[in-house]
């Protein structure tokens, strides 16, 4: 029982990061049908800035805002430089463009920074735990879960209560009709990328802390987890993205603890098999969005 609880908290901590990443992927997908394989760059770029900042003598108090701000700016910059030029193109063109952005950013760091691992210190409290009864809860997991709850509450408020949020939802549901109502396509798309970048920035803070190092391809894992979680939840559904992230995190942690010792390394493989099974029975994901007929 203790072990299960322990694993649940572990899984929720992991899943919360995935949920934030997936939500960012889903927000952009909803607006422009772009499955953004460059989403991980919003972690790679702040990751290198973190490495740079520690070399300049910064500490985590100043690095955390740096990560969030740089993720937002990177997201806006990538939209401006790459995606704004292929707006309205086929989904496949958008997909290829996002791959292109990923490879260019990775190649840029490889060429102009270094191919080797760049380390930076984790925060001092990183491995600390607090005992609750028989449970040993990592402060890191607790921090991830609490921050995620706050950010999700804030995002919900933004989407439900502000005109920007309403415009974003309207544009995601029917872009042309939203424009007919006067929603400016430029603003709503940039807003979506800013929000996506902010969510990636929050996830990035924890991801970057946990890794303790950065490489040119550091963005691949967070991107994969974010995209997978969004697919599991049902592409286009924001609630689904959050749910998908939590499910993916829990599945990883629980599988790792349940699998026999010899094959624990195959956890990822088992997760993929489960995802494949999910798509056989629910091709649209957990909370599939009904396809609106576009005439």
């Amino acid at each position, binding site marked *: 029982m203790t072990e299960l609880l322990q694993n649940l908290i572990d899984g929720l901590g992991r899943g919360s990061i995935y949920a934030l990443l997936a939500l960012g992927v889903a927000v952009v997908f909803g607006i422009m049908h772009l499955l953004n394989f460059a989403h991980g760059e919003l972690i790679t770029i702040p990751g290198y800035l973190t490495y740079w900042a520690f070399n300049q003598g910064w500490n985590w108090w100043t690095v955390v805002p740096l990560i969030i701000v740089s993720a937002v700016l990177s997201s806006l910059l990538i939209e401006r430089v790459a995606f704004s030029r292929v707006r309205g193109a086929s989904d496949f063109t958008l997909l290829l463009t996002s791959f292109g952005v990923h490879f260019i950013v990775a190649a840029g760091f490889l060429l102009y920074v270094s191919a080797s691992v760049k380390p930076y210190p984790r925060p001092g409290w990183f491995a600390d735990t607090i005992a609750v009864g028989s449970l040993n809860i990592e402060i890191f997991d607790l921090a991830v879960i609490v921050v995620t709850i706050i950010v999700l509450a804030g995002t919900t408020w933004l989407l439900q209560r502000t*005109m920007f949020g*309403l*415009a974003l*939802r*309207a544009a995601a*549901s*029917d872009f*042309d*009709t*939203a*424009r*007919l*109502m*006067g*929603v*400016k*396509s430029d603003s709503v798309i940039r807003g979506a990328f800013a929000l996506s970048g902010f969510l990636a920035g929050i996830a990035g803070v924890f991801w970057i802390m946990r890794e303790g190092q950065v490489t040119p391809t550091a963005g691949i894992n967070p991107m994969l987890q974010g995209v997978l979680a969004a697919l599991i939840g049902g592409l286009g559904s924001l609630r689904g993205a959050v749910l998908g992230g939590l499910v993916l995190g829990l599945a990883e942690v629980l599988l790792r603890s349940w699998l026999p010792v010899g094959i624990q390394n195959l956890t990822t493989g088992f997760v993929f098999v489960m995802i494949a099974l999910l798509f056989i029975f629910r091709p649209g994901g957990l909370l599939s969005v009904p396809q*609106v007929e576009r*005439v």
Partner: protein
Amino acid sequence: MLEVTGLTTKYGAISALRDASLTVGAGEVVGLIGPNGAGKTTLLGSIAGLLPIDSGTIRFDGNDITSGAPEKILRAGLSLVPEHRRIFADMTVEENLKIGGVTRSGAERAELLDEMAELFPVLRDKWDTPAGYMSGGEAQQLAIARALMSKPKLIMMDEPSLGLAPILVDLVFELIDTLRAQGRTILVVEQNATRMLRAADRAYVLRSGEVVATGTGAELLDRSDLFDTFVGG
């Protein structure tokens, strides 16, 4: 107020609209009728900025709005109630209306919301319901109310009676009368030709992408040669 001159719009090699011209004066209710595929929806879509135009000009209130972005044309004072209503199904009635008023200030939007609640009692009863749960007639009223939220100088409606039960069709035409009485300017595409001609001040008959007849509603109703066009033959 609205002046469309020589408008041609193509889908690939096919002209959906050929050299179509029409005018709408302030305070007028103008009908646009014709069989399926005559280009009525294309014409409204071209005016609203949804479709690329091949040639021709569209002037509104003295300004050239040809090929403007939809959000710009809306800001010029032209609002379209699109075909099939296209309400935001997963948003509530109130949220749909708020989006309709996205170009207005907060205070003005609040006033307009009150106005719509009064004009459309059925919406007031479903204020917090997701719009996807509404019946066709309710959804049509929401689509019209949503378009009115931008305080348009001219409102265009694309097939507002499409797919509605007869009693609801009556309601739509009553609504057009109410809006006319408020002094609004309206351009309506309708398949229900006879009904439209009775409701409109003037009308244009469109066939195979061309304007084939124009006149007051009464004049056109008397033209037996257009009968086939009216019934979609």
